[in-house]
C-alpha cells in the first residue's frame, strides 16, 4: 500500500515535471517557428499538454471538478487551432 | 418595501432592450419611448430627491442580502441630486437629439442613450465599490457607442483613443479594487469606511495604495490633469447631443471623489493622511489653468468648448480638493452649473455648425438664424466663463469664498481669477470671429452649398437649448435655496454615521448585522 502510493506520488511528480518540460519544449518551437504552421502546431501541442496538466492536478489534489475545464480546453483548443490555420489559409475565418 | 430607488437603473435597463426588440426599425416609436422613459425618470428622480431632502437615507438591498455581503443602493441627498440632474439633463439632450435628427444618423441611438442613463444612475446610487466599477463600465461602453454614433473618420479615430484611454482607466480601477479587497476584505463603501478605521499606523502602505489608485481612477473620469488627455478630442468629435450628455460623465468622477474621500478616506483619517489633500489641489488648479488656456488657444469651436469643460471640471475639483463643508457646497453648486452650461454650449456649437462648412474659428458667411444662435452662445459663454449674472459667477464666488481661509488661498485665487480672464478673452475672440466678423464678409458666392448640406435647426433644438439656459438662470436666481441645499448635502457628507449605520445595521436575508467583527 505505502509503496504503491509512494510510487504514485513519484509518478505524479515525474509526470508533472515531464509535462512541464514538454510545454517548455513546445514553447521553444513556438518562438523558433520557422513557419506559421509550426507555431500553430506548437500552440496546439501546448493546449493538449495543458489538458494533461489539469488532469494531473485533478489526480494530485483528489478533486474531480477540473473535468469541465479539461473538456472545455479540449473543445476550444481545437477551435482556435482551426481558426489560426484558416486565417493563414484564407484570411477570413468565417467566409 | 419601496422599489423606487432602483427604478432609475431598471427603467432604462428594461426600456433599452425593449426598444431594440420592438422598435428597432421605427425611429418614431423609439423616440416616443425614449422621451417617455426620461420623463418617468425625472418624475422618479424628483420623488427620490424629495424623499432624501429631509436627510432620510434610503437603503435598497439587492437580492435581499444585507450589506456588506450583497450589493446595496443608497439614496441620500447627494446621490439623489445627481440622479435628478442627470434625468433633467437627459430630457433636454434627448429633445435636441430628436430635433436635430442626430438620433437618426446611425443605429441604436435611443437604446444606447437609455443604457448610458442606466450606467450613470447606477454609478450615483450604488453603495458598493465593485458595483460602481460595473456601472462605470456600463456607462462607458454606452458612451463609446454614442460617441461614434453616425461614424465618420475623425470621430472613429478619436473614438479609438477614447476607448483605449478608458480601458486603461478600467484596468486601474480593478487594480484599486484588488488592493481594497486585499487590504480590507470588503467592497461595500460603508463597511470599508468602518474597516479602514481599524488599520493601525504601523501598516499603512496597503490602504494608501488603494486610496491613491482609486483617486487616480476617479481623477481620470473627472479629467483632472494630467489624466485629462482623453477629453478634448472625444468631446469635440462626439455628436453634439452626446457631448452634451457627456457633461454629466465627468461629474461622475467628481461625485465618486466626493463620496469616497469624505466618507471612507475622510480628510481626518490618519492612515491616508496627505494623499488626496496633497496632490489633488495642484492638479485641479493645473486643470483649471490648462482648460482655460485651451479655450484661448483653440482653433475650433468644438475643441474650445471641450477645453472649457476641462477648466470647469478643474474648478469643481479645486473646490472638492479643499475637503471642507463650505468647499463641497461650492463644488456641488458649481457641478450643477457646469453640467448645464457645458451641455448647453455643446448643443449651441451644433447650432453654429449648422450652415457652416466646419467649426474652424475663422469667419464664414453669416447664415440665417445666426442672430438667435449668437445670443444663445453669448449667454452660454457668459455662464461658462463665470461672468455675472449667471450661475458660473455665483459658483466662482462660492469657491473663492470657501478657499479664503485655507493655506492655498493665494494660489487658488490667483489661478481662478486669472484663468477666468483668459477664458473671457478666449470666448470673446471666438464669439466675435464667429458672429461678428462674419458680417464683414462679402456675401459668399456659393452659400447655398453649405446651407443646403445641413438643414436649419428645428424649433425643438432651440427649445432644448433654451431649456438648459433657463435652468441655468433658475440656478442663478434660486442660488440661495440651491446653496442652502448643497450645504445640507455637504453636512450629510461630513457626518457619515447615519449613512454607515443605515447601510450596515439593516438586516437582510440570513444575516445578523455586522457579522465578522
Amino acid at each position, binding site marked *: 500500500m505505502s509503496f504503491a502510493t509512494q510510487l504514485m506520488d513519484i509518478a505524479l*511528480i515525474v509526470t*508533472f515535471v515531464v*509535462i*512541464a518540460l514538454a510545454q*517548455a519544449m513546445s*514553447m521553444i518551437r513556438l518562438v523558433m517557428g520557422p513557419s506559421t504552421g509550426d507555431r500553430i502546431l506548437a500552440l496546439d501541442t501546448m493546449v493538449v499538454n495543458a489538458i494533461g496538466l489539469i488532469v*494531473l492536478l485533478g489526480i494530485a489534489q483528489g478533486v474531480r471538478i477540473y473535468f*469541465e475545464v479539461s*473538456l*472545455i*480546453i479540449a*473543445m*476550444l483548443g481545437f477551435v*482556435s487551432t482551426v*481558426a489560426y490555420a484558416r486565417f493563414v489559409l*484564407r*484570411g*477570413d*475565418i*468565417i*467566409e | *418595501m419601496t422599489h423606487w430607488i432602483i427604478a432609475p437603473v431598471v427603467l432604462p*435597463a428594461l426600456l433599452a432592450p425593449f426598444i431594440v*426588440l420592438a422598435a*428597432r426599425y421605427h425611429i418614431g416609436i423609439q423616440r416616443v419611448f425614449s422621451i417617455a422613459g426620461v420623463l418617468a425618470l425625472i418624475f422618479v428622480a424628483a420623488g427620490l430627491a424629495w424623499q432624501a431632502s429631509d436627510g432620510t437615507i434610503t437603503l435598497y438591498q*439587492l*437580492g435581499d442580502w444585507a450589506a*456588506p*455581503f*450583497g450589493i446595496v443602493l443608497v439614496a441620500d441627498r447627494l446621490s439623489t441630486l445627481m440622479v435628478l440632474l442627470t434625468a433633467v439633463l437627459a430630457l433636454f439632450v434627448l429633445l435636441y437629439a430628436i430635433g436635430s435628427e442626430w438620433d437618426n444618423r446611425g*443605429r*441604436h441611438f435611443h437604446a444606447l442613450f437609455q443604457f448610458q442613463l442606466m450606467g450613470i444612475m447606477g454609478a450615483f446610487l450604488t453603495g458598493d465599490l465593485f458595483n460602481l466599477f*460595473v456601472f462605470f*463600465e456600463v456607462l462607458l*461602453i454606452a458612451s463609446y457607442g454614442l460617441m*461614434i454614433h453616425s*461614424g465618420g473618420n475623425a470621430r472613429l479615430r478619436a473614438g479609438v483613443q477614447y476607448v483605449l*484611454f478608458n480601458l486603461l482607466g478600467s484596468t486601474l480601477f480593478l487594480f484599486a479594487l484588488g488592493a481594497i479587497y486585499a487590504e480590507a*476584505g470588503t467592497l461595500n463603501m460603508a463597511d470599508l469606511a468602518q474597516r479602514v478605521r481599524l488599520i493601525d499606523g504601523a*501598516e499603512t*502602505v496597503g*490602504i*494608501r495604495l488603494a486610496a491613491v*489608485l482609486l483617486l487616480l481612477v476617479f481623477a481620470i473620469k473627472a479629467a483632472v490633469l*494630467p489624466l485629462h488627455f482623453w477629453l478634448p*478630442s472625444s468631446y469635440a468629435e462626439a455628436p453634439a447631443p452626446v457631448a452634451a450628455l457627456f457633461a454629466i460623465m465627468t461629474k461622475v468622477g467628481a461625485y465618486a471623489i466626493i463620496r469616497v474621500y469624505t466618507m471612507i478616506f475622510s480628510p481626518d483619517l490618519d492612515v491616508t493622511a*496627505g*494623499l488626496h489633500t496633497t496632490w489633488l489641489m495642484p492638479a485641479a488648479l493645473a486643470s483649471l489653468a490648462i482648460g482655460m488656456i*485651451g479655450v484661448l488657444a483653440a482653433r475650433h469651436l468644438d475643441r474650445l468648448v471641450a477645453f472649457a469643460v476641462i477648466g470647469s471640471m478643474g474648478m469643481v475639483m479645486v473646490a472638492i480638493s479643499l475637503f471642507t463643508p463650505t468647499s463641497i457646497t461650492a463644488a456641488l453648486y458649481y457641478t450643477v452649473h457646469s453640467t448645464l452650461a457645458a451641455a448647453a454650449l455643446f448643443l449651441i456649437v451644433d447650432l453654429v455648425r449648422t450652415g457652416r462648412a466646419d467649426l474652424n474659428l475663422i469667419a464664414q458667411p453669416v447664415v440665417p438664424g445666426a442672430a438667435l444662435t449668437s445670443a444663445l452662445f453669448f449667454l452660454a459663454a457668459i455662464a461658462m466663463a463665470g461672468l455675472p449674472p449667471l450661475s458660473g*459667477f455665483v459658483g*466662482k464666488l462660492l469657491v*473663492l469664498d470657501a478657499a479664503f481661509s485655507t493655506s492655498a488661498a493665494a494660489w487658488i485665487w490667483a489661478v481662478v*481669477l486669472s484663468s477666468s480672464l*483668459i477664458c473671457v478673452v478666449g470666448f470673446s475672440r471666438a464669439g466675435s470671429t464667429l458672429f461678428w466678423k462674419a*458680417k*464683414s464678409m462679402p456675401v459668399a458666392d456659393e452659400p447655398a452649398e453649405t446651407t443646403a448640406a445641413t438643414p436649419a435647426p428645428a424649433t425643438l433644438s432651440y427649445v432644448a437649448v433654451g431649456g438648459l439656459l433657463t435652468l441655468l438662470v433658475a440656478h442663478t436666481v434660486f*442660488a*440661495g435655496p440651491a446653496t442652502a441645499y448643497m450645504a445640507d448635502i455637504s453636512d450629510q457628507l461630513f457626518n457619515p454615521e447615519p449613512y454607515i449605520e443605515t447601510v450596515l445595521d439593516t438586516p437582510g436575508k440570513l444575516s445578523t448585522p455586522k457579522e*465578522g*467583527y
Partner: protein
Amino acid sequence: MSLFLIVALPFFGALLPGLMNSAGRQACAGITFTVSLAAFIGLLTNLPAVLAGDLVTARVDWIPSLGMNFTLMLDGLGFFFALLILGIGLLIIAYARSYLSRDDNMGEFFTYLLLFQGAMVGIVLSDNILLLLVFWELTSLSSFLLIGYWKHLPEGRQGARMALTVTGMGGLAMIGGMLILGQIAGSYDLSVILQNRDLIQADPLYVPALLLILLGCFTKSAQFPFHFWLPHAMAAPTPVSAYLHSATMVKAGIFLMARMWPVLSGTPEWFVIVTTAGLITMVLGAIIALFKHDLKALLAFSTVSHLGLITMLLGTGTAFGAMAAMFHILNHATFKAALFMSAGIVDHEAHTRDIRRLGGLRHLMPITFIIATLAALSMAGIPLLNGFLSKEMMLEEATHTVLFGAPWLVPALATFGSLFSAAYCFRLIGHTFLGPVRDDYPAKPHDPGAGMWLPPAILVVLVVMIGVAPFLAEPFVKVVTASVLGDTAEVPKAYFKIWHGLVPALFMSVIAVVGGLLMLAIFNPALRLWETTPRPEAKTIFEALIAAIVALSQRFIHGLHNGAFTRYGAIMAVTVIVAGFYAWSTGTVGPASREMQPVTPVAFAGWVMLLAATIGMVFLHRNRLMSLILIGIAGLMVSVGFVYFSAPDLAMTQITVEVVTIILLLLALNFLPNQTPIESTAMRRTRDTAIALAGGLATMGMAWHFLVRDAITTPISEFHLANSYKGGGGTNVVNVILVDFRGFDTYGEIIVLGIAALLIYALTETLLSGPVRARLLNRKPDQPRAGDMHPTMMVVLTRVIMPVVLMVGFYIFLRGHNEPGGGFIAGLVVSIAVVMQYMASGFSWASARLRYPYHGVIGAGVLIAGLTGIGSWFVSKPFLTSDFTYVRIPPFEKFELATAALFDLGVFLAVVGAVMLSLESFSRLARRAHVPDTEHPMDIDPSRDDPPMTPAREGV
C-alpha cells in the same frame, strides 16, 4: 419708487426694444425712452429723502450663506450717479434715435443700451459688494456689445475685445479685493463695511485688497497705465461714446473709489497710488489729446485726463478733495456729454471727424458751434462756466498736496496738465469751427434737426447755469460729498463761488489758460516734434501682447495635446506609478503575516512559459499573427494558473473568452495589415521600456505586499461561503455570488456585453452605408488565399461535433449552480459551437439555413434577467431576490428549481446573442462583391458529381 424697480426697469425694459423692432424705429426709441424716463422719475421720487440725508434701502435675500444678497441703498452719492446715468441716458436715447442710420438694428442697440443702463444703476445702488460686482461685470459685458455694435468694423470688434479684456481683468481683480474686504469686515454689505475703517485698515490683507480693488477701478476708469483701451472704444457709435465714456462707465471706477473712500482712503498706500496714478493720467491724457486729429479721439483722451484729475482729487484723501472730485464729476459729465454729442453731429453732417479736414464750421452750423464752444471753454476752465469752478478747486487742493516729499510737484503737474487741457480745448474750437469755410468737406455740413442738437443744448444750459450760479449746485454737491465722506470727515464749509480772491489757484489757472493759447499758437511745430518723438502705441503693444499670449498658449496647448495616444498613455502610466510610489513611500510597512507557499516545478514551468510568451510578444509583436498566437499562450497559462489556484470557473471563463477574443481579432486582422512596421526610435523604445519596467515592478511590489499579508479583518466572503447553500441553494459559491449575492453586478455585466454587440452592429451598419462600403466590396486580400474554402473533413466533423458541443454547453449551464460552469460559460460554449459551423461551411451558407435574430436573443436575455429581478417585487422583496425549491417529477431525480437559474438563462441568452451578433457583424464586413453565396456546405464532395450506388439510399 422702490429701488428694486429703478434697477429692474432697464433690465426688463431691455426686452422691449427687441420685441418692438418690427414696429419701427420710432416705436423702438420711444419705448426705450419711456422705460428710461420711468426709472428716472422713480429715482426723482426719492430725492426728498436723499436731500434729507436719509438712507433709502431695499433688501431681498439671494444667497444668504454666501452673504450675497440683493441689497440696495440710495444715498447722496448713489443718487448723484444714478441721476447722471438716467438723465444723460435720456438725452442719449433721444440723440441716438436721430443718429443711427436705417441700416442699424435699432432694437438691438437699445436693448444693449438699456442693459448697460440697468447695470450702471445697479452698481451705484448696490449695498452689497458682491451684488455690486455682478453689476460691475455686467457693465463690461454690455459695453462689449455696445462697442462692438458695428460688427462689420474691425476697429469695433477689436475695441470691444480690448475693453472687455482690460475691464474684465480689473473686474476679476476686484472680485478678489471685494472678497477680502468682505472677509475682513465679516459682511459683504457696504453699510457694514463702511463702518469698519479701522478694522480694515489694520488688517494685513488691507494692502492686497486695496491693490485689487484699485486695479478694478483704474481699468474701468482708464487710469494710467490702463488708459489705452478707452480711445479704441471710440469705434462705437457716438451715442455710445457719449454715454459710456463721458458720464457712465468710465465713472464707475471713480464711483467705486468714492464709495470706498471712507474705508480705503487716508492711508499712505492709498494716497501714493491713487494720487500718482491720477496725476500721471491727467497730464498724459491731456498731452495726447492735444495731438489727436480725430475729434472723438481727442475727446476720449481728454476724458482720460479728466478722470485722472478726479482720481487725483480722491487720492489726496481730504474732504475738500472729495468734494472737488464730486463737483468735477458733475461738471465733466455735462460738458463732456455735450461735446461728444457735438462731435457726433459734426461727424454725422460733415462725414468726417478729422480736425485737419474741418474748420470754418462756425458759419455752417452755428448752433452746434455755440454748444460745442461753450462746453469746450468750460472744459478749458474759463470762468463763468462750470468747468472753471471745479478746476479751481482742484488747483487749490493741489497746492496743499505734498507727494514724494516735494511740495511743488503736484501743483506744477496740475498746472501743466491744465495748460494742455486748455490747449486742446482751444484747438477743438479753433480748428473745427473757426477759420475760413472750406470747400472740401466730405459732405455739405449744416445744423441737424432739433432731435440731435437739443440734447447737448440742454446740457450746455446746465454748464452755464452752474458756471454762473454755483450756489445752485452747492447743496446738492455737499449732500453727495457727505455721503462719500460717511462718518470719517465733515463736509468742508467752503462755499462754491467764482471769485475766491488772489489765491494761488487763480494764478495757476491763468498760467494754464494763457499757456494753452500759446500752445495753440505753436501747435504746428509742437505737432512735428510730437510726431517725431518715438512713443509706444498702446494698441499695438496690447494687440501684440494678446497675440503673443494666444500664440504661446497655442504652442503650449497644441504641443501638449498633440493627439498622440502614445504620449497620453505614457503620461498616464508615469502619473500612476509616481502617485503609487508616493503613497507607498509615505506609508509604513509591517512584517509579513502569511507564510509563503513552496514553489512547485509545474508552477515554475507555467511561470516560465508566461514569461516567455510575454517577452515573445514584446519582441515579436510586429508579426501580428505571431503575437496573437503568443497571447493565446499567455491566456492559456493564466487559465491553467487559475485551475492551479482553485478557480475552475475562472479558468473556463478565461479560456473561452480567450478563444472568442482571438477569433474576433483574427476576423479584424483580416482587414488590417499583417505586419507592424518599425517606426519608433530607439530612444522611444528605451523610454517605453523604462516605463514598462517601472510599471511591472510597481504591480509586482503591490501584489507581493498583499500576498504575504492577511486582510485587516475577515473578508466578507466568509459569509458567502457560509450561506451559499443555505441561502442561495448552490454549492458552487462563485456561481451563487454571480447570480445571487452579487447578481446585480452580473446584470450590469450582461448589459455591457449586450451594448458591446449593439455597438458593433451599429458601427458595421454605419460603415456599410458609408464610403467605406465600396472599399470593402472591392478589397483585395493582402496575401494569396489557399483553395478549399470549406474543407470536407471539417464540415463532416462539425456535423457530429456541434451537437455534442451544444450538449456540453447545456450541461455546463445546468450544472453551474453546483459545479463549475454557469450561464456565461455555457453561452460562450454554445456560441463557439455555432462559430464552428460558420467556420466549416461559411457564414452565408450556415445563416441562410438558420438565422437567429441575435438582436432579439440579446434583448430577450437582458429582459429575462431584468424581469427575473423584478419578479421578486411581487413577493415584496428587493430586485433580484432569489428563491429556490426542490422538486421531483418521475423518472427524474429530485432537482432544484431556482429563480437564479432563470436569471442565469438571461445571462446565457445575452452572451450567445452578443457574441454571435458581434461575429456576424465582422463577417458582414468581409463579404466581397461578385462573390456569390456558397451553394454547398463543402467545396469538395465527390458524391455530388459522382452519385454512388442508388439502392443504398433506401437502406438502414
